[in-house]
């Protein structure tokens, strides 16, 4: 009985860091730095939206309580994702820095 060879893993060509950006960040193409800045911009927009909802809640203009809580949750998750990606990128950088000439 013959066993098929294991298929090679396809290269990671998909965008590494596209934090759900729909219009702000064009997916695929573009180098890591531009994708990173687009993602951070998306994160910034999310935080601003949450801040606006918090002001509305404080001034009594908020129609839906859950809108604020959900926006805050999404901003929190997006921040965690950005931090994780930052940590991984930093780990890779440090690993290269440790290489002996």
């Amino acid at each position, binding site marked *: 009985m013959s066993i098929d060879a294991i298929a090679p893993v396809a290269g990671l060509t998909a965008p590494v860091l596209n934090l759900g950006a*729909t219009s702000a960040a064009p997916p695929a193409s573009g180098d890591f730095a531009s994708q990173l800045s687009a993602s951070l911009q998306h994160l910034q927009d999310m935080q601003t939206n949450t801040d606006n909802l918090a002001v509305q809640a404080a001034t009594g203009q908020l129609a839906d309580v*859950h809108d604020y809580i*959900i926006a805050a*949750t999404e901003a929190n*998750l*997006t921040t*965690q*994702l950005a931090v994780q990606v930052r940590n*991984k990128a930093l780990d890779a950088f440090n690993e290269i820095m440790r290489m002996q000439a």
Partner: protein
Amino acid sequence: MTQLFGAIGIAGTGVTVYRKWLDAVSDNIANLNDAKPTSQAAFQARYVIAQAVHYGKGDGGVEIGGTALGDPNGRLVYEPTNPIADENGYVRYPDIDLGSQMGQLIMAQRGYEANLSVVDRAKDAYEAALNIGKG
């Protein structure tokens, strides 16, 4: 285009719809006993119409498509002592059944809570994904 953390946003639209349903039911119950002269229309019950957002494609979720109104004729009640009664002693009350409204109230509340538990579970799931490779 699917969104990151899409389940949370989709469940959020559901919460909004059920909140509006709760508002409609509370409006109906608040105006349950509005007597009107027979020359005027009775209070019309409000019924929200929910519909899917871009069904099967797009971001998903639910939205309010509009509001349907109940019967403006209401029901005629014989109340000759009422100051706004007509010469035959009748006034017009809204045609709203309190039992039916209470049933809708429970459904709206449960739907609201169900969508919020989806938000909660989705948050836990996404956090588990973010914990991959931590530490």
